[in-house]
């Protein structure tokens, strides 16, 4: 117990002593855990609300409707087919136009009984169920129109009072509603070069009236369509039931296909977020490796002191690991909280399902996975340097011997032919090749992400209709991309600054020596900045190709998408992206480089040993 207390106390003391580094570390892991949490919570939101809606509304296993070749009699026969245990309907349905809040929308109006149905009894989320003269709106549709209970809407030229809002599992929420009227429907954006056939409904909402009210609105009895909801003995056999009863050309939809459509948007958002989480995870590992590597160099003396006063290599490793695990636990907790709180912003289009209107709940598996990833990242990044530090000789550690820099002979030879700042920059880079690789990877990952964002943004803007996205859906996906962009850029900026600081600190001695030998502060400053900008340039180029291209190909493969529908960035956009990246890195590293180039020479030379 005393040993654990000692390890904890030493770890906390060191974190408090190096607050800035601890904060940067926290931000790096936090960004990754937040995005991962968002991805996982949105995944849960994508399936759970439908399940709960289905349970709450006695959701049908199969929804059947009349069509050009199937009439009311066929539906009534289906109600008694083998395998059917319960049914509701057939209910009449008509097409119409609803005016509310100054907007006119196409709607499908379904006539229902005021009594509770055995199958598909929509769950009222506000107000009450249908009554004569009162209309109930599907919740997501009402949400998009900003209509509330008590408002008046016009339907078929008549004014109706909204008596309730409800959700159903018999069709996906607005704007993905299934077509139940004979007029036909089109969901999503309509390409500008195509006209909608007369009578077709565009992105129709769903409303319920009593059956007499629907019949009063129908221009003629034969203009009505009918819907039948069926419960089967074995819901998993819904597809087989549809196949067995497809002799009559009837419209039939299984609960599994409704589930898939209802959660399609959330699934797309989840794929984006999860890919974002992986990219951010990579960036976080790069940050951690640099931070930890930099700290290990600084902590050599501390390791020596711990060992000199009797600390075993195990204790030293435990103290170092404890520091990072502590930060990882805090980052995981904060990431889970932020992710869970912001997830509703990304799932608001699922308001048409029970349980999705509030905060999507965290599951134990999400908590465990996010925590495990945070701890794993910390352990991965700290294990090697911690063990190396713990095993180092006490005497050399106490003497604060600096890590021996690498010698990159060809780079040293090449640099002699270049101007002084580039000469020094190449040598700075050559001293720590692994850090340069991390910098290149970090920038390449970021630029790949931005490349993908450009493609997706263009796709959403220009080809929204290609996958049937409505404006509301595009807005939701843009939210996802926005969240992605902000976290990605924030973490990339943190990485650039961290790497620049680590480089400046690591080169204190060589910078001071170069100045003692005649390099000007400006030359050293430019060298330190150039040592960051050169890897940034390489990283940006690799991030565009092959990085961005491969990431795009991966997304297309995962989502089973059609790559011909996406417009890839044009050359000038890519060149601008590379230049912007280089400029951003130069700006971010300017301050550390300037401070590094102007640090008093004598202080450094006195403190450091060659």
């Amino acid at each position, binding site marked *: 117990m005393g040993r654990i207390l000692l390890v904890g106390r030493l770890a906390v003391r060191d974190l408090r002593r190096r607050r800035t580094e601890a904060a940067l570390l926290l931000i790096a892991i936090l960004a990754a855990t937040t995005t991962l949490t968002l991805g996982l919570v949105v995944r849960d939101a994508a399936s759970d609300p439908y399940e709960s809606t289905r349970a709450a509304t006695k959701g049908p296993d199969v929804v059947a409707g009349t069509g050009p070749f199937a009439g009311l009699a066929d539906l009534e026969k289906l109600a008694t087919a083998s395998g059917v245990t319960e049914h509701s309907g057939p209910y009449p349905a008509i097409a119409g136009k609803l005016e509310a809040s100054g907007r006119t929308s196409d709607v499908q109006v379904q006539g229902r009984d005021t009594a509770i149905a055995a199958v598909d009894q929509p769950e009222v989320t506000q107000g009450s169920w249908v009554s004569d003269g009162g209309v109930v709106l599907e919740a997501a549709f009402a949400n998009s129109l900003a209509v509330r209970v008590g408002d008046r809407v016009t339907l078929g030229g008549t004014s109706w009072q909204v008596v309730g809002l409800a959700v159903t599992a018999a069709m996906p929420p607005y704007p993905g509603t299934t077509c139940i009227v004979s007029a036909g429907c089109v969901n999503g954006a309509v390409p500008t070069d195509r006209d909608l056939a007369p009578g077709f409904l565009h992105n129709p909402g769903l409303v319920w009236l009593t059956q007499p009210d629907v019949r009063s609105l129908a221009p003629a009895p034969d203009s009505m369509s009918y819907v039948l909801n069926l419960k089967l003995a074995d819901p998993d056999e819904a597809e087989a039931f549809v196949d067995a009863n497809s002799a009559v050309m009837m419209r039939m939809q299984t609960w599994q296909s409704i589930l898939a459509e209802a959660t399609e948007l959330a699934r797309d958002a989840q794929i984006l977020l999860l890919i974002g989480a992986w990219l951010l995870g990579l960036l976080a590992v790069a940050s951690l490796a640099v931070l930890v590597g930099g700290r290990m160099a600084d902590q050599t003396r501390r390791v020596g002191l711990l060992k000199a006063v009797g600390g075993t290599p195990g204790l030293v490793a435990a103290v170092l690991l404890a520091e990072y695990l502590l930060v990882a636990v805090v980052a995981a907790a904060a990431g889970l909280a932020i992710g869970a709180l912001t997830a509703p912003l990304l799932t608001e289009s699922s308001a048409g399902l029970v349980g999705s209107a509030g905060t999507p709940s965290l599951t134990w598996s999400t908590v465990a996975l996010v925590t495990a990833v945070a701890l794993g990242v910390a352990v991965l990044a700290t294990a090697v340097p911690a063990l190396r530090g713990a095993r180092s000789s006490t005497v050399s550690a106490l003497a604060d011997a600096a890590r*021996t*820099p*690498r*010698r*990159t002979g060809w780079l*040293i030879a090449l640099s*002699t*032919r270049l101007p*002084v700042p580039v*000469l020094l920059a190449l*040598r700075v880079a*050559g*001293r720590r090749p692994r850090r340069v690789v991390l910098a290149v990877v970090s920038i390449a990952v970021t630029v790949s992400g931005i490349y993908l964002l450009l493609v997706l943004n263009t796709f959403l803007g220009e080809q929204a209709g290609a996958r049937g996205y409505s404006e509301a859906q595009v807005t939701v996906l843009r939210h996802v991309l926005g969240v992605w962009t902000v976290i990605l850029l924030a973490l990339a900026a943190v990485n650039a600054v961290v790497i620049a600081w680590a480089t400046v600190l690591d080169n204190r*001695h*060589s910078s001071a*020596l*170069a*100045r*003692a*030998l*005649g*390099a*000007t*502060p*400006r*030359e050293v400053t430019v060298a330190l900045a150039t040592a960051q900008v050169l890897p940034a340039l390489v990283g940006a180029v690799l991030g565009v190709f092959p990085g961005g291209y491969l990431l795009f190909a991966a997304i297309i493969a995962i989502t089973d998408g059609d790559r011909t529908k996406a417009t890839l960035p044009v050359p000038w956009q890519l060149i601008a992206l590379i230049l912007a990246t280089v400029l951003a890195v130069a700006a971010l590293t300017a301050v550390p480089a300037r401070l590094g180039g*102007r640090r*008093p*020479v*004598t202080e450094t*030379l*006195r403190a450091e*040993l*060659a």
Partner: protein
Amino acid sequence: MNEAAGTPVLRAQGLRKEYGTGDGLVRAVDGVDLDVGAGETVAIMGPSGCGKSTLLHLLGGLDRPSAGEVSLNGRRIDDISEKALARMRRTDVGFVFQSFHLMAELTAVENVELPALLAGRSPRAARRRAEELLEQVELGGRAGFLPSALSGGQRQRVAVARALSNEPLLVLADEPTGNLDSAATLDVLQLFEGLHKSGLTLVIVTHDARIAATSDRMISMRDGAFVDETRLSGGTTGQLGALVGLADLATEE
């Protein structure tokens, strides 16, 4: 202090360096006057912490004084910009440090050529000069070795060669034998004696009487100020050298 013969290459007047304020004020260098003539070797001796190294840093423009003036070849260097100071160091001053301060990833010849490259010399000229200097310090055969593969004395000889890379007016050496064993000390002493004979102007900070014995003047420093000065007849490893054991070491070699 005595005037050095001829025009002084280095002149310091009323030189002061203070750290801290109020009760915590420390005068590391306290009113030092010094003239060093061309070709002269001056040794500054004193106990640890008396301000010797700080003085050397002020004289070489690595640090700025709190008060007083420093001139190099008649030109004030205490009030010029950092950039001008850097240029001055690159062409006029060579430094030799106690802990060598060699770049660990550069070979001996790459370390020696670095000041010339910083001064804008062509890579070929810089390399040729570095090889010549390494020959002079008898390390021609070790030009391609990394510092980690050299002994302490060899490292210090590389550092001396580096200090001479740009043919400076003045070489400032800070405890050049402080980290060396007796045999390596002898190597370096002989090297400095050679530099002295070649007419180079040298200021050496040391607490080693043997190295001070090679100088023209030996100045004692205490609490930041000069307290005593001894003029030696042109620098010697003769009588005084024998007195401090240098001759014995030479014989042992």
